């Protein structure tokens, strides 16, 4: 029961946001999609201890797969999501066979490199992807043949929120499962995991594949909601910002990923409109302040405050 509380809170926030910002639904949808991407990263960095800067490779491939599927095969949104997730998973599995043999800086460099290879590939295959012009002409069918995507983005927002709920719930179950426990074991001590008989390398590939599916779904959602896929889905910035959002919110507990994304993107949006030239400075300051004051991220804030209040008494 207690585990359902955060979900109820999440639903409440989603509903309030919907009515409070009826003309910002496109932005809110982007936030929700980014949350899914950051969740996929939390599964790797926060839960399993796999540090990566290549989430864009998985996200971007999901976006192109869903976009191409909609244009050439079938414009059904849910089918497109599954295709995007599958594409992300396949890319993660194949690249993971190599990547997951490496650790630390080598892994960081290689994950960045993989995303760059994909960006270059998408650029070279312009007959298929539209190259630098982007992949256009995506028009989506109604969700489940019923809910038409509308101009102000109501359907798009609700659809994205539903996907976020489902992904979060699934990841919660996975993290609480024996598989999830073994991932946390790997984070604490890969050597001990091997010593109890766990094939650590295979487990790492498995979780990378799962994270690939989730990131791919996020990419697919992005493609569907903006009706466009450009080469920028593979940008280094996508991976780097996802990591900053995760660290800001706090790693390893999923809720941190959601909070970090919301705060980062809200501050970004406000700061960029207040001061289009210096918003990066504000974001940078925010991240530094949080990392310094609450090393475990915003999710650790209540506990930190409780501790400080306790000390005052």
């Amino acid at each position, binding site marked *: 029961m207690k585990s359902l509380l955060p979900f109820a809170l999440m639903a409440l926030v989603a509903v309030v946001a919907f009515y409070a910002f009826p003309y910002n639904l496109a932005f809110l949808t982007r936030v929700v999609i980014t949350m899914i991407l950051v969740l996929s990263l939390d599964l790797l960095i926060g839960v399993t201890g796999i540090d990566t800067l290549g989430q864009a490779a998985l996200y971007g491939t999901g976006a192109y797969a869903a976009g191409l599927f909609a244009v050439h095969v079938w414009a059904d949104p849910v089918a497109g999501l599954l295709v995007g997730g599958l594409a992300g998973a396949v890319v993660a599995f194949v690249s993971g066979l190599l990547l997951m043999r490496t650790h630390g800086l080598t892994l960081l460099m290689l994950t960045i490199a993989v995303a760059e290879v994909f960006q270059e590939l998408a650029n070279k295959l312009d007959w298929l992807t539209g190259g630098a012009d982007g992949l256009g002409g995506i028009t989506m069918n109604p969700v489940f043949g019923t809910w038409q995507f509308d101009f102000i983005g109501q359907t798009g927002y609700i659809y994205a929120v539903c996907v976020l709920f489902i992904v979060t719930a699934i990841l919660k179950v996975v993290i609480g*499962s024996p598989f*999830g426990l073994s991932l946390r074991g790997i984070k604490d001590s890969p*050597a001990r995991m091997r010593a109890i008989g766990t094939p650590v390398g295979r487990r790492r590939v*498995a979780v990378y594949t799962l994270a690939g599916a989730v990131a791919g779904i996020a990419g697919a959602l992005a493609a569907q909601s903006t009706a466009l896929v450009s080469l920028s889905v593979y940008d280094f910035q996508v991976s780097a910002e996802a990591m900053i959002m995760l660290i800001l919110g706090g790693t390893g507990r999923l809720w941190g990923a959601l909070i970090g994304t919301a705060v980062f993107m809200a501050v970004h949006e406000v700061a960029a409109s207040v001061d289009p030239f210096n918003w990066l400075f504000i974001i940078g300051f925010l991240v530094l302040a949080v990392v310094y004051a609450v090393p475990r991220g915003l999710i650790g804030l209540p506990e930190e405050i409780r501790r400080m209040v306790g000390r005052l008494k």
Partner: protein
Amino acid sequence: MTGLEVIGLNKAFGGLTVARDINITLAPGDRKALIGPNGAGKSTFTNLITGILEPTSGEIRLDGRDIGKLSEAQRVKAGIAKTFQITNLFKSLTVRDNLRLPLLERRGLTGRLIRRSDREGGVEDEVESLLSQFRLSDMGDRPVERLAYGQQRLVEMAMTLALKPRILILDEPAAGVPSSESPLIAEAISGLPQDLAVLVIEHDMALVFKVARRIVVLVSGAILTEGTPEEIAADARVRDLYLGASHG
């Protein structure tokens, strides 16, 4: 033969030879101790057996089958397990989760994506009985990093027993355990299933003489001698070794 058979094992780190033509057998029911001065190569030997390190040459057989090419995880599945001399636990996880992991792994369940990890009936029963065996029941839900070092040593031992190995290697299980708790270690070793093959590495001679029926003495990577506790106690070379360089 059944059990573990080590034939002509050698290992060198660069120019430093730490295992020199080691021959040891460990049959079901054996209670052997491996003793020797610091740096003799005892821990290295355990790492060679469990597959953490690869030998320069030599053979390791389990029930007559060459296991030298098996991965560390595969050797665990084959029945070989060890405790670490320097405690190696899942620090941020609770004591119960530390025990669940090997228990789930032994049953081949850690690939499962659904059902909560703390709802596996057989596993939970074993978790509780291991906790009470090592008097850890009170701190079962505490993260391991909050335990005193001596208690962490007990978790270390309990985790390895959770694997139900056939060949059990204990690398200084009592090191760091306060004397009030160290009988728990001796008790646990005496309480092991009779058909288990056990190799204990220890500097604590009281414990060695309590549990071992045969003692192997390792010096500079080579076996100096092997014998019953009485023979080893009477061996002048061993006595010189331990009087010359005394420790823990």
